[in-house]
């Protein structure tokens, strides 16, 4: 019947990623469509609120990743992310200066200047991309930047490889949003 193949291309915060899907099966393009990997499941790392409303994630190792990645590597990733967020939300001299300067200009300055938080978010995005390329994609995992989930969770997609999985050459991180 109809072989309608639907593509959806998302662009979010300077990165674009492509999700291909059709009615029968779904494959998610990680490395230029040369091999297909199917999404097995997703794990969501929740927020850790023990220190208040600052953005921190739980470092508890989820059971689903047990066979996929070493515990230490995972914890290092989450701890580094937590440190980045702490740096972004630090209340100290620099944030006061930024706040007062912005107030003095009636916040018009933010039309041309980037806030400190946004700068750190860019660093986080680069870090996640690098982690995906070096460590997670070879193990069939993919981390989604928490900002794309409203800073509520770190979404880790677990893929089943079909065939050999090489290191990813594409710089995209894909989040699958369609159900099966």
């Amino acid at each position: 019947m109809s072989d309608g193949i639907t593509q959806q291309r998302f662009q979010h915060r300077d990165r674009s990623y492509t999700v291909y899907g059709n009615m029968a099966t779904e494959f998610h393009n990680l490395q230029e469509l040369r091999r297909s990997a199917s999404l097995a499941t997703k794990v969501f790392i929740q927020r850790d609120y023990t220190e208040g409303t600052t953005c921190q994630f739980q470092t508890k190792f989820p059971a689903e990743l047990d066979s996929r990645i070493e515990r230490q590597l995972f914890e290092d990733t989450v701890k580094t992310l937590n440190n980045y967020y702490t740096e972004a939300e630090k209340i100290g001299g620099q944030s006061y200066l930024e706040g007062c300067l912005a107030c003095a200009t009636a916040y018009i300055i933010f039309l041309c200047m980037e806030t400190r938080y946004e700068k750190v978010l860019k660093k986080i995005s680069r870090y996640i991309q690098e982690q995906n390329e070096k460590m997670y994609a070879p193990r069939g995992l993919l981390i989604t930047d928490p900002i794309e989930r409203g800073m509520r969770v770190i979404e880790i997609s677990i893929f089943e490889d079909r065939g050999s999985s090489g290191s990813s050459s594409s710089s995209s991180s894909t989040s699958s949003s369609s159900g099966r």
Partner: protein
Amino acid sequence: MSAIMVSKKVLRKWEKLPGKNTFCCDGRVMMARQKGVFYLTLFLIVGTCALFFAFECPYLAVHLSPAIPVFAIVLFFFVMATLLRTSFSDPGVLPRALPDEATFSGPRGEAANGNVPAGQRPPPRIRNVQINNQIVKLKYCYTCKIFRPPRASHCGICDNCVERFDHHCPWVGNCVGKRNYRYFYLFTLSLSLLTIYIFTFDIVHVVLRSVDSGFVNTLKDTPGTVLEVVVCFFTLWSVVGLTGFHTYLVSLNQTTNEDIKGSWSGKNRVQNPYSHRNIMKNCCEVLCGPMHPSALDRRGELIELALAPVPIPASKNNKENPQTTKTTAPLIPNEHTPDDVKSSIAPETEGDVEEKLSPLENKPPPSEPPTPPPADPAETTAVLEEAF
């Protein structure tokens, strides 16, 4: 005979956001739906200041000091800037959970993950966390399908969960939450100052003029003054009171929502776990803290492509697209219509066929129902199925 039809639709993400917000300027501006009271606020502020500049300032600049209108202008711009910032920015809306996240971390998912301590079963829609040695209950939001972070609340008017929800203010036409609370506070503070300023100089002006020409003649010469005094008098009581109240909240690091609900009122020795117990620290955190970014990517692009074989009928309708969904555009271009229109496609669709192969960025009304993204592939493919 058939051909392959490529249709491409470029949308911005704001067009597909759930919730009852209005977006303007292609997603740069985000407000609540009911804006009538906001327009009234604008009218009162701009109108009163215009009268002040027209009637009082010429006289006072000459007889007292030219600094008076200058300072009034500065104050006026600050009030407008903070008002517009409060009204137009994202208050800290939490995006809704996608289906997989909702299943994983939803109330049933929690029990399955073993996060519930053995022997105890809290009601599934509540999760307990410990913050600074205080047990705080996180409630599950059935609309947004998330466990609300601490201090977040769901605004019924905007139909969104907002972080550090303070209140929904009709005067600014938006919710007040984590991201725009400081602008709101500075707006009320500067508006109080502006009101006091105008009121004071109205009185001064009337007195000075009455000395020269008598009270009744003064009022006849400057009728605007009467209007200003009336507006300022009523505004003073409400806005100054509000500023005082919010100063109290800021010093305690509380929100209006928490204050109304009595969350930290001290009974059962429950105390505010977010307060630093130091007024200066609390003020600095609320007013000079980091500027959190928006979790909603309003202006991100969403490109939908659909490839489908299309039969070319004998008639001249060979440019249509079976992907066209709605045939009526929303009445108000930037209003977000509820997603209650399921696409029903007839192969011959005339009239509102979207411009296919060129970006739509500057075109006001999207004529596609804002269905949530996860459903799109299924929907478009289902539609293709229908077309044959």
